[in-house]
């Protein structure tokens, strides 16, 4: 089964204590899209949940949508974008400056949209994101996304990257290192036959 930093399948029921609820931390949850075939294959069931330690749900959802605007992969499931929110939430929990920057940034988006940025029309959302490009808030989210969004098994499955070769069956010598068929093979002088023992 998939080990995944957000809880999927049967583990996805939010298990918040009363204390956590009183602290106002939020929960993001969703259902893996039916179109997310590769992800469905990894997860035992479609439900997923992310318990936030620091942010409320609105901040979490806004950061998720902001990440979608920064790195838009239309068919990439929210469950993968939620990993960025998870890492931002964790950093905000240990670094006060990050918490201030991110909650302040989301409040700024809301203010600029004259209400709740999440509820603004898509093109207005995008225009506001564009106007924020390069700000410390934007760069914090973008910088976290560049590592968190693309460095996990769910993203690997989506983009067709095979990840850890050692753990997944060893070298490609016997599993397709030179299986490309749409171009002719180079001559042996340029590319000798493999040694197969």
């Amino acid at each position, binding site marked *: 089964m998939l080990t995944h930093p957000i809880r999927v399948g049967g583990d996805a029921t939010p298990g918040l204590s009363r204390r956590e609820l009183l602290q106002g931390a939020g929960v993001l949850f969703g259902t893996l899209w039916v179109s997310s075939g590769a992800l469905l294959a990894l997860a035992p069931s479609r439900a997923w949940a992310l318990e936030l330690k620091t942010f409320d749900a609105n901040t979490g959802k806004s950061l998720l949508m902001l990440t979608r605007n*920064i*790195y838009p992969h239309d068919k990439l499931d929210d469950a993968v974008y939620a990993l960025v929110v998870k890492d931002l939430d964790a950093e905000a929990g240990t670094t006060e400056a990050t918490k201030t920057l991110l909650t302040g940034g989301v409040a700024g988006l809301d203010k600029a949209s004259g209400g709740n940025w999440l509820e603004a029309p898509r093109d207005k959302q995008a225009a506001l994101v564009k106007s924020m490009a390069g700000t410390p808030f934007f760069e914090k989210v973008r910088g976290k996304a560049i*590592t968190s969004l693309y*460095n996990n098994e769910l993203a690997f499955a989506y983009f*067709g990257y095979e*990840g850890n*070769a050692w753990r997944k069956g060893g070298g490609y010598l016997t599993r397709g*290192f030179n299986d*490309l068929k749409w171009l002719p093979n180079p001559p042996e002088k340029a590319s000798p036959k493999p040694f197969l023992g």
Partner: protein
Amino acid sequence: MATYQSNDDSVVVVIGSGAGGGTLANELCQKGIKVVLLEAGKRESPESFVNDEWGSFGQLAWLDKRTTSGSWQVARDFSGLPAWICKTVGGSTTHWAGASLRLQEHEFRIRSVYGPMKGVNMLDWPLTLKELEPYYTRAEDKLGVTRTNGIPGLPGNNNFKVFYNGATKVGYKDCHTGRMAINSQPRHGRGACQQLGFCFQGCKTGAKWSTLYTEVPAAEKTGRLELRTECHAARIEHDDKGKVTGVVYFDKDKKEQRQKARAVCVAGNSIETPRLLLLSKSNKFPDGLANSSGQVGRNYQRHTTGSVYATFDQQVRMWRGTTMAGIVTDEARNDPKRGFVGGYELETLAVGLPFIVAFLKPGAWGREFTEAIDNYANMAGLWIVGEDMPQESNRITLHTTEKDQFGLPVPNVHYDDHPNDVAMRAHAYKQGAAIYLAAGAKKTYAVPPYPSTHNLGTCRMSGTPKDGVVNKWGQAHDIPNLFISDGSQFTTGAAENPTLTIVTLAIRQAEYIAKQMSANAI
């Protein structure tokens, strides 16, 4: 393994266990010389290496604080990480891709061949290719370089297949799977390459040569090596006569230690090596050790690099198999008609999804970027390795205010591209794109340089003491028992990946040190 007393002044202290230091330590031990090898990093192994780009980066990379300045794009894209090199036993031989090319004859004498150029601190090596050839032969045998010593070439992977088809279509004649220090068949107790990919993350099968599991254990087997890991050299000390007497270092508990020495050999890569000499300044040597020429830290070279990636209609899966799977050498010649002197190699290069997003266009966001990444499985890639010009103002200096974890000034790496470098890079981008378009690419991407892996020239070799830091043996002009044993001693950078030449110079230097010691000259 041997254990030496800290006041044993009969040992040779080697600082750094990579291509230069690891090789030198072993060669000295084989000749009966006692060696203390100081390594700033920990000892990993093929078992502990991980097929995980960021995970491995955290395990192997040198991440101590560094700063950057200058107009090079690395200073903008990776301001705190000028170089992608390693702090671990084996140094950057854990991370290198394995390309093992000899320098070309003319590259040893660019002052004579290229002539004077504005802003360039031209100098000929005090060495010729002919003098080095016997040592190159020994180095190729040691590393097990394919296409030498009767060793077959490696089989090409998918990334190579695309590269080869495009390269031959645009008319390149010399394209093959390269001269690689990766076993294409079992050799010297190490197995053949299994095409895992992840060459940059430490080879999990040991098929790629690294001092970690070749030179270092061979030296340990002699009973003359004491390897001290997590020991960070802080300064080199000297006596009234100006001879070095030992090394002060911080151990793994950050406790200051002092090891006496008969000779000291510095191989900390081309940023740490000059930094250490500058940190060792004294009343006698107020500008730093071995710096009467003022050239310590100067002439920093890092190769004119860049990458070209391209997307196709169909799958490539470039990550499968060797990271650097093939080469075109046609552009490595010196042909000023192209608009620049010197030449460049084109070598296939593949990175995984976590790194392609970090490197493709640093700082980029939005649909143009994500559309490229959506095509990641259909992507092929190559790297440009060209000769950059030595400039005095490209240099390593000690930061005036920033300090590292030991309280030592951090190194600042300053680099400005020379117009020759810019012209070469533009040419190489064009040729790289032409290769992929000829193979049917939908779109090509000119990717800016990664943090430097080839750091060279900051303690350069010269025929006369006024022009450089060391003589043709890597021996400091100013201090006879101080040696530079890494790529810092390169007079100029040439177009080739430097590891083979670093190893070659280390083998030769070991012979010289042994002779000097038996003649009691040092």
